């Protein structure tokens, strides 16, 4: 039964080895899907290439449904998986700062590493920026601390907050995702990248 780290008593070093293997799969899929290209990533914000939305939402519903099924069959103890804590204001403000970083820099942290892996100099500079930005946070922590720790809400899950089952919520999420895929396919035809046309 999963998580294996808890129920099968795999050692810490074995767990780190699995982390390495999972990372290889993660990096391979990101690169193979085109996430090593900032111009492809930025395309989602202008409609000319909506790969990110399709990959991101397909991955989220695949993993979500997978966890639901694993839980129903008793293959994984869902009480033992990590749920990120929700601090309302730092999540909102942090998300906004990340969004600004995304549209200016063209990468997010995970994708920038796949850019580095295939020789993108702009990705290497982005990673340099990440190091600097995180250093600004760790050095300036007393300044950020108030916002960082404010409005702690525990580890709420949207389905329980709405008072519905995980399965029903996931069904809704799948429907929303398919609606977004439809809009994404439409946008790619509507807003092609007009390059060399001038």
């Amino acid at each position, binding site marked *: 039964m999963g*998580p294996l780290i808890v129920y099968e008593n795999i050692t810490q070093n074995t*767990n*780190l080895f*699995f*982390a*390495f293997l*999972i*990372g290889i799969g993660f*990096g*391979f*899929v*990101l690169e*193979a*899907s085109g996430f090593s290209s900032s*111009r492809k990533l930025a395309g989602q*914000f*202008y409609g000319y290439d909506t*790969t990110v939305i399709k*990959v991101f939402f397909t991955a*989220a519903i695949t*993993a*979500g449904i997978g966890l639901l099924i694993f839980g129903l069959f008793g*293959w994984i103890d869902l009480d033992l998986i*990590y*749920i*990120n804590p*929700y601090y309302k204001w730092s*999540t909102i403000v*942090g*998300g906004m*700062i*990340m*969004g*600004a*970083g995304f*549209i200016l*820099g063209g*990468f*997010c*942290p995970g*994708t920038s*590493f*796949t*850019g*580095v*892996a*295939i020789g*993108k100099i702009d990705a290497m500079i982005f*990673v*340099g920026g*990440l*190091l600097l*930005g995180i250093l600004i946070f*760790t050095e300036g922590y007393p300044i950020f601390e108030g916002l*960082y720790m404010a409005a702690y809400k525990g580890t*709420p899950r949207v389905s329980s*907050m709405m008072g519905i089952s*995980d399965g029903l919520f996931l069904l809704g999420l799948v429907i929303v995702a398919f609606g977004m895929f439809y809009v994404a396919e439409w946008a790619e035809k509507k807003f092609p*990248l007009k*390059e060399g046309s001038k």
Partner: protein
Amino acid sequence: MSEQSIPEFRKTSYFNPYVGGVLLGLVLLAAFYISGRGLGASGAVKSAVVAGVETIAPSHAENTKFYSDYADAHPNGPLKSWLVFEMLGVLIGGFISGAIHGRLKLQVEHSPKITSRKRLIFALAGGILFGIGSQLGRGCTSGSALSGMAVLSMGGFISMIFIFGTAYALAYFVRKLWI
């Protein structure tokens, strides 16, 4: 449209995005099944920053609450962490895919309407912002938004909405960087 005007990312072949999405979802599911946690990226960079500060300025790290708290929470050192090993794997997995698909090339990728220098300045600025934001938000697009959404967490959905929402809201104003 001449051959040269086709952007490089259009000339190479990528996975079908829905196939890529299912595969990424399965990798994420494997992380939950084996290690009881989701994927991440910014946490590994934070480990590198903390390790760097501890090495370069050990007395500063010992006397600063943030670093001493971090050291107490990570008794095996900042680098012996799940995310650090995962991100080393990401570099290798990305390299393997790039090699198989013929995409290994040292280059600055940018729109033909801007210079390499401008692209690099904005890449640096974007990285700095993403670095700060990922710390405030306790995770980035992978760790907070994607992994959080898979476990239906409120934090995951709020992260996703504000990361993508802000980028869409600002896209018009910086369109000359990309289109």
